[in-house]
């Protein structure tokens, strides 16, 4: 297989890893005020992702970096043309990351409340922004022959990219609810399960609609297969979560997002960023890629690096596999506790 194709697949995989992993921790953040009835419950929720959210977030950094190295023109075109959604993503991720670390460091209700708000906003804005960005690269942007955006700063905001934004947000919300049910115990677990069952059809609707839209516009014959897998997996997820089998429902959602990403990138291929103005201006795996030497070097790095990441990141989830309940949450542990 040609290295350009390999790297197209690697980048799709990195996006998949990102959506799957940070998807649920965005969902946990979004659901903080919904499922967390008091501070201890909110801390239970935050601590389900406490040790892992940062590692999850690296997937988007590596997705960006890999795109820069393997397809410079794709990286340059997409990041400059989808400027505003990316800016909002950045601002939100900055606030969110700091919020997790700082929230518990002052023992004050006001302080924690304030950071809770940052977590909620910081977990809601990024999936919306990332949805716009992914939808933009799949559906195209108004690019000229140089790969630069023509027209306004709002080119990435359209009804069809909005559907993509809702898709990523809806998926994250649902995925987060199932994750909380999977990683907690007691009352909050039951409520998370009920909520997931109830919101599933609504939350997953934009995912299905967006995947179908992409399939209809750009799909190939074979991309019907992952699309069908997505639909099947969603139904399985619904059935399993309603039956109280959180682990199976979580895995089924993993299959669903895999099917969706394969559909989207499968339909996109061999383009990487189509131009909505003129197909001749579209960026493709061939005209956007780095040279063979660079791709070869990067392939070796990825061939050793990626499995290692999967192993040690997987190990973290094993170390922190226990369900968390309210009785596990220690008393607030802050600098203020002891004055000296």
């Amino acid at each position, binding site marked *: 297989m040609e290295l350009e194709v390999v790297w197209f697949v690697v980048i799709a995989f990195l996006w998949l890893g990102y959506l799957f992993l940070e998807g649920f921790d965005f969902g946990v953040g979004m659901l903080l005020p919904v499922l967390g009835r008091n501070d201890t419950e909110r801390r239970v929720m935050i601590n389900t992702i406490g040790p892992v959210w940062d590692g999850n977030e690296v997937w988007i*950094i590596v997705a960006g*970096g890999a795109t820069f190295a393997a397809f410079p023109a794709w990286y340059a075109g997409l990041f400059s043309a989808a400027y505003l959604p990316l800016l909002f993503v950045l601002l939100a991720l900055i606030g969110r990351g700091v919020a997790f670390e700082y929230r518990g460091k002052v023992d004050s209700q006001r302080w924690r409340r304030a950071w809770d708000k940052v977590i909620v906003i910081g977990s809601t804005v990024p999936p919306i922004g990332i949805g716009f960005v992914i939808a933009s690269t799949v559906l195209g942007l108004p690019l000229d022959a140089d790969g630069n955006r023509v027209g306004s700063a709002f080119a990435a905001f359209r009804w069809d990219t909005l559907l993509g934004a809702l898709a990523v947000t809806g998926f994250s919300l649902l995925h987060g609810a199932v994750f909380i049910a999977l990683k907690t115990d007691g009352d909050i677990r039951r409520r998370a399960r009920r909520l997931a069952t109830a919101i599933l059809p609504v939350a997953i609707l934009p995912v299905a609609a967006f995947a179908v839209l992409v399939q209809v516009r750009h799909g190939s014959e074979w991309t019907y297969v992952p699309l069908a897998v997505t639909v099947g997996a969603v139904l399985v997820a619904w059935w399993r979560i309603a039956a109280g089998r959180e682990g199976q429902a979580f895995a089924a959602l993993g299959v669903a997002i895999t099917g969706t990403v394969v559909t989207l990138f499968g339909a996109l291929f061999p383009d990487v960023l189509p131009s909505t103005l003129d197909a001749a201006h579209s960026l493709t795996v061939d005209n956007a890629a780095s040279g063979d030497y660079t791709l070869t070097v990067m392939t070796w790095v990825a061939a050793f690096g990626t499995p290692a990441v999967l192993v040690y990141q997987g190990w973290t989830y094993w170390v922190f596999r226990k369900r968390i309940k309210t009785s596990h949450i220690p008393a607030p542990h802050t600098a203020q506790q002891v004055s000296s």
Partner: protein
Amino acid sequence: MIVEVLELARWQFGITTVYHFLMVPLTIGLSVLVAGMQTAWVRTGNERYLKMTKFWGKLLLVNFAMGVVTGIVQEFQFGMNWSEYSRFVGDVFGAPLAMEGLVAFFVESVFLGLWIFGWDRLPKRVHLACAWAFSLATVASAYFILAANSWMQHPVGAEFVDGKPTMNSIWAVLTNNTALAAIPHTVAGCFAVAAAFVVGIAAWRLWRRRGEDDEHRAVWRSSVKLGAWTGVVAFAVLVVSGDFQGKLMFQQQPMKMAAAEALCETEQPASFSIIAVGDVSDADCESVKTFNVPALLSFLAEGDFSSEVKGVQELVGEYQDKYGSHYPDDPALGELAGKPVDYVPNLPVTYWGFRIMIGFGALSALVGVATLWLTRGGRIPGGRWFPWMALGSIALPYIANSAGWIFTEMGRQPFVVVPNPDPSGVDGVWMYTAMAVSRVSQGEVWLSLLSLTLLYAVLGVVEVFLMAKYVRGGIESVMPAKAAARLGAGGDGDQDGSGDDSGGGGSNGGSSRGQAGAPDDPDDEPLSFAY
């Protein structure tokens, strides 16, 4: 319009990068020091080292978070604000950046999470290994990003194919002599920050309880020693590597060398001015009075007190001959198309940046040594000047680092990728900063610049506030369990199931046991640490 976008994008890069590099040096330096402290604890079992690990580790975490979140902006803004640059150099420059993510960032973030939450869940030595994993990963990330930056100062390992640099040797890129000199220099700069930070805070803690019975005094004494010696070693590395960098700069970026001295006319031998009075950007040098050390600049440039160092005026002519006197007549360049290129960097910035870097760096090491001397043999100075000196001098290496980076990045203007003066193979691999900027609207970059700056300012205040809180709280604020455990939580402090963790983690768990009930069921034990 491109001129405005260019100015804004440069301001944003400057602000966000200098800010990011306020967090990064402390993260790198202190990570390694904390891993060292924890190693000392694991090996000796001495409680003092555990307290050091916990205290400095807590401050490290407050800072780490800020370094992580401000780092994402760094990667994204290449594409957002500098897309022409990204498109031009991505084949070469993207590789170290992607490696940094795949090799360093994953290790750093995953093992940091394990370290924060793993105190009572991992065997002691595995937990220690996590500390080394994330701290060495921070150094690895410095390596990759400096390899990328050094390529912009001195492109190697590439050839010009179809109008673009194409990588032909990753080995050359990763072993660029510019990078090999920049890495020890920058990493030593990181340790200088961590050293001043540790010395300053520990000295203040010593002074604060000077007349009292302070059970933690040994912690602060060890910290002062560790910090001061780290600072001395770091400074030695800074001097040697800096000298090496100067000599490379003289060969690779002669204009930057001239700009560091604001040297108008070529001199042989060239003197180095300690300080100047007047406007160093004056083209004829007539309004400037300098206090010179004869022939020192010649030595800095070539290791020879009699060498010739070319001045700005002569170099401008050389650059115009080699790289052209005007920007290309490309409509994409907007108002700059066909205009003359100004090859002279901002001289006041380079001249003063260079001196602030050296002066403040040296002063910082000096304060460390002075503190070591003043606290020798159990002494603690009583005057109010002592804590002021100790805490105030934390700023010195930060200022030196920022000045050094501002010098080196402003000193390569008007280039974003500086041409390699020995261009065998890399002919044509260079780029003007003005041609690197994205074709986006002014409004977008304004919004980005203002919102990021504002957010950074607010978070900066919060970070300093939190650090101050922990510093005031001392050991008790990071190990509240100790006090409670003494009051009779009882047992051997080892009820968490990981039988070999008898230290902080175990006793932490012990403290909260009484509050949360159900001590009979090990599954209901509160976590030793939770957000």
